[in-house]
């Protein structure tokens, strides 16, 4: 009796597995409004898209840790679908080992091009060596990877250090090189947190009156950003504060709420600067609560697929395809807000 049961269940498992594969393509594709789709594919998509039909692209994503990341994923998926790319998408759930596994399985599957957004900077050499041996070109997107130049075709994405610098420069100008700043950092150890902190400090170098008086992690989340700010506002340091620099918009949005609850005006009493440029951040700028956000464009889909198509044809690409990060302050926020879909 038990063997029969076991066999039955095993069969059911197999059936579920196969069935799951078949149906998943239809069920997981989230319904999108038409204009959202148009927008995700449009940036720079002038006439003459490169022919990418039939290209087999493996993309290893970090995860779905933020709205920014989801927009990034959506942009790649939508672009791939529009241009007939056979996209293999793998989600690493913020774990490097999962991403390495995904890349290795792309190699085993024999895809044409591999693209990935590294979870962390280091540790990619062995697996990229393997890709090189297998003759599969690699595109690194969004975050830097610390590997020799010969291991990848191109890096497409923003420069976190530069983002931090831009935010720092803007803030220095706004405060006339004088003031006390609180810094809300990202998840300890993560690349954007490390780099944005580094860039920001570079911008502040030599400006003795511009001081970072408080630095604490807000884990890139609104809730934590709010909690940290709330505690800070009650300390003696809090009363001397002129500005807040948050490593991403979400933490800034949380911090703004805490500043308000402490009876101060964010945007005027305390200047708030952050990075990413998500929709809610623009809304906050329109409301006058956020002063400035450095855009970190997540819509890399077109650029990645263009690059993939080119590499597949054997073209050599520049090692660095920079996505220009814009910087937006309250003066342009109202105009820009309707264009923000992520």
């Amino acid at each position: 009796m038990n063997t029969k049961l076991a066999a039955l269940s095993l069969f059911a498992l197999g059936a579920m597995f196969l069935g799951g594969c078949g149906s998943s393509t239809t069920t997981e594709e989230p319904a999108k409004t038409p204009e959202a789709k148009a927008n995700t594919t449009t940036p720079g998509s002038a006439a003459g898209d490169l022919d990418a039909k039939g290209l087999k692209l493996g993309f290893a994503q970090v995860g779905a840790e933020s709205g920014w990341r989801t927009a990034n994923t959506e942009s790649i998926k939508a672009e791939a679908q529009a241009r007939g790319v056979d996209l293999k998408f793998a989600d690493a759930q913020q774990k490097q080992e999962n991403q390495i596994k995904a890349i290795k399985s792309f190699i085993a599957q024999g895809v044409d091009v591999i693209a990935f957004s590294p979870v962390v900077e280091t540790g990619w050499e062995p697996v990229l060596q393997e890709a090189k041996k297998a003759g599969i070109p690699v595109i690194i997107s969004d975050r830097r990877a610390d590997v020799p130049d010969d291991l990848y075709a191109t890096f497409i994405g923003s420069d976190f250090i530069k983002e931090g610098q831009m935010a720092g420069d803007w803030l220095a100008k706004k405060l006339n090189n004088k003031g006390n700043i609180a810094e809300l950092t990202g998840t300890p150890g993560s690349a954007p947190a490390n780099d944005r902190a580094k860039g920001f400090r570079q911008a502040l170098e030599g400006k003795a009156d511009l001081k970072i008086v408080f630095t604490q992690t807000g884990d890139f989340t609104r809730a934590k950003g709010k909690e940290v700010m709330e505690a800070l506002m009650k300390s003696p340091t809090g009363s001397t504060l002129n500005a807040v620099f948050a490593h991403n918009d979400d933490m800034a949005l949380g911090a703004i709420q805490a500043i308000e609850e402490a009876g101060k005006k964010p945007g005027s009493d305390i200047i708030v600067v952050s990075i990413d440029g998500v929709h809610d951040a623009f809304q906050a700028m329109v409301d006058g609560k956020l002063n400035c956000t450095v855009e970190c464009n997540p819509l890399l889909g077109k650029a990645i697929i263009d690059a993939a198509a080119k590499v597949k044809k054997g073209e050599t690409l520049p090692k660095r395809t920079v996505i220009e990060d814009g910087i937006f302050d309250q003066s342009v926020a109202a105009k820009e807000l309707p264009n923000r879909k992520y």
Partner: protein
Amino acid sequence: MSRASLKEKLPILITASVLVLLTLAAGLRFDNFLSLRVLMNLIADNAFLGVIAVGLTFVILTGGIDLSVGSMMGLGGIVAAELITVSHVHPLIALLVPIAVGGFLGWGQGTLIAKLGLPPFLVTLSGLFLCRGIALAISRESVQIEHPFFRTLTNWSVSLPAKASLSLGSIVFILVVFGGMILARQSRFGRTVYAIGGNANSAELMGLPVRRTLVWTYVLSGMCAGLGGVLFALYTSSGNAISGTGLELDAIATVVIGGTLLSGGYGSVLGTLLGVLTLGVVQTAITFMGTLSSWWTRIVIGTLLLFFMLVQKVIELAARRGQTT
């Protein structure tokens, strides 16, 4: 086969057959899935997880739990990386230090648990925080390891046909599994571990060295976690303080899938190996599928785990019914 061995082997047989079926189903569905290369990847990619799971198996067999293994792996990796790149210690020594550190921290946890009777869950949860804190204090940034000898180690592998190869990490993993199997089955330590899991109080009254053995299981688990950190450093040729976040849950899941009971006393190292491979096959199959979004990946993994538990439960019930008649 006597009833004893059947009861012990049944969960393994179930896991093994589900694993085979899963692999075959995926092989039918996806090109290139059933290849030596994918199999070798499976071992290489899960070497650190596997080594950690083997150590954890002993702890779980005693009825305990070790939640610190993930962050201890992170600590091990960053310690090795710092020693090689910053302190310029020779890799051969630097790669042994994390194992010693893991063993020492495991000893501390084991002492609190076995000698002072603190609950393992809390002690090792504190261990998780402690290791992560120390690791981040050593270096918040990940550290690339540049050393000729180290590079030789990472690149060293046994070439196999069909573009497959067996890396150093894979070999260590296989050795650890064998070592673990022998330790569990052929040593007094191993049998005492099972006895403690069966009934710690009785084991103590039988005159077995219960406390000492308990401490040693946590030392073993810590050493395996440290070794896991070393393997991860070899795997990525870098050290990163936040690597291994949440890995303890993966490790527990693999041990449980392998048929080891969390209440202790029943289970095996071989089962853990099968559990690691099963989780690996599920992950690989999802990548081969390549269409699941982030959230569906989570839901599918959760559903497969649930399915696994239910099958185990059904068979366990059927077996129990069979025994009473």
